[in-house]
């Protein structure tokens, strides 16, 4: 419509709604004003848009206000949600906060300054509580068999080493290596079945919540690794009691390999699969245990010798790198949560 009209005489129809709303920049607005002086068509259009604006304004003016209870109901909902998430784990703190909330509810005229201070004091506690809630919520979501499998593998290792010591004259070092093998495998089981859609019954639930998947995985890693370390510590105490020697010295034998294999299995399980990760860990651990003690003098297979059976800084750094890799590999916020 405006194509044939010279630039300075072009109609400004398309600009008129924004002009009526005061949304045009100064230059465009003055161009519209100048054009309107001499253009009857655009004057009619302006009147039409002003009529639309008037209708919208009238409708807005006729809109009733919401009831005065809206904010009270909002606070009730916010309090209910916060108390529901806090009351179980932090009874004392939540009671204090509930009392604080009641004060806020009843005395909203109290100074805003005091409330600000309270909010500031609560902020770190809130973050900690949230972290604890996420941490605690993972326990029922972790693949149940991990708990039983780890305990059974550990128990089996202990029984095997005790029976080996009674039947044969194996040296204490050999028996310790076998025990370390079992303990390291326990760590590997934990890492391999920690997180992922194929083995994780709570995976769908996890990715449907807005909580960061990285945080969830880290919490699970701490829980499972902590549980496995506890099992290994108990087994080590029994071992040390039976054969004598320093408990800490024995712990040092498995601590590094356990953390390393758990991190390795976690990374591999995310990339390939849980079973593959576990098999890899077992192969690595067997390769580094058996060539030294048995295989080398039973059959002459040139197996590689890995030096995993000690808690070395390099091993711990490798474990940390693998864990960091796993953490960055999974998305921080899965798509389902958006």
């Amino acid at each position, binding site marked *: 419509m405006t194509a044939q009209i010279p630039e300075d005489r072009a109609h400004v*129809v*398309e600009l008129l*709604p*924004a002009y*009526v*709303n*005061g*949304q045009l920049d100064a230059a465009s607005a003055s161009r519209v004003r100048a054009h309107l002086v001499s253009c009857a*068509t655009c004057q*009619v*259009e302006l*009147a*039409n*848009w*002003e*009529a*639309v*604006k*008037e*209708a*919208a*304004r*009238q*409708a*807005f003016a*006729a*809109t*009733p*206000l*919401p*009831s*005065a209870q*809206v*904010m009270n*109901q*909002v*606070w009730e*909902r*916010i309090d209910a*949600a916060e108390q529901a998430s806090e009351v179980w784990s932090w009874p004392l703190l939540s009671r204090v906060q509930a009392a604080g909330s009641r004060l*806020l509810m009843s005395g*909203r*005229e109290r*100074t*805003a*300054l005091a*409330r*600000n201070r309270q*909010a*500031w004091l*609560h*902020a770190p506690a*809130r973050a900690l509580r949230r972290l604890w809630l996420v941490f605690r919520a993972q326990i029922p979501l972790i693949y149940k068999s991990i708990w039983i499998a780890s305990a059974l593998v550990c128990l089996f290792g202990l029984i095997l080493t005790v029976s080996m010591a009674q039947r044969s004259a194996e040296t204490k070092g050999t028996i310790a290596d076998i025990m370390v093998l079992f303990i390291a495998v326990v760590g590997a089981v934990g890492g391999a079945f920690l997180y992922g859609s194929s083995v994780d019954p709570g995976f769908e639930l996890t990715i449907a919540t807005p909580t960061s998947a990285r945080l969830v995985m880290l919490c699970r890693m701490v829980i499972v690794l902590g549980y496995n370390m506890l099992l290994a510590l108990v087994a080590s105490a029994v071992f040390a009691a039976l054969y004598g020697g320093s408990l800490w010295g024995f712990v040092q034998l498995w601590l590094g390999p356990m953390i390393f294999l758990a991190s390795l299995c976690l990374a591999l399980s995310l990339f390939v699969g849980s079973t593959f990760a576990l098999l890899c860990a077992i192969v690595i651990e067997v390769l580094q245990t058996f060539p030294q003690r048995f295989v080398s003098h039973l059959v002459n297979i040139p197996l590689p010798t890995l030096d995993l059976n000690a808690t070395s800084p390099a091993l711990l750094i490798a474990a940390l790198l693998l864990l960091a890799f796993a953490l960055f590999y999974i998305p921080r916020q899965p798509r389902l949560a958006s």
Partner: protein
Amino acid sequence: MEAFALQRVSWLTTEPVVDDAGLLKRIARGDRHALSELYARHQQALFAYLLQLTPDYGLAEELLQDTLVAVWKSARSFEGRSSVLTWLIGIARRQAHNTLRQRKIPLVDLTELECLPAPDLEPEASALAGVAREELAQAFRQLAPVYREVLLLTFVQELSYQETATALAIPVGTVKSRVSNARRALRALLDLKEDTKR
């Protein structure tokens, strides 16, 4: 009443007036007074917007509560890329759409959209200038929610096309065409009324 009480509080504490973005920062830190103040500032705009989407006063209040709870939870995510009102309307729109979808309440009357005159007709076909105010207001109330919301945001809240597009999560071009279509729909409703009179 509540707005008055809030004004009294800020007078008593002689606090400097905080802008909307500052209020959101305080809400993110758990400051309840800040949420009350933000609500006092924008309650009419939010409620009027929600009432364009549903004529049910009770449901609109429920959606308003949903919006405020969502603001309390997600104040931290405000990045300042739009105005606070645009951000609030965006939240209200999402809450409303989710709830209305769950309850199977339609938002757009498609038959009304189909009845619109073609956009290439002469401007006279959507002339509204001489129409009586009361008639126009009545026609406005009968418009489809998608038209009422876009007219409310652009002509009453005076959001720019860009801000309206952000709030409604639609392209700017759609906002422009929707504004034009809304005007034609108003004219069509008035014509329909005249026809029924005859």
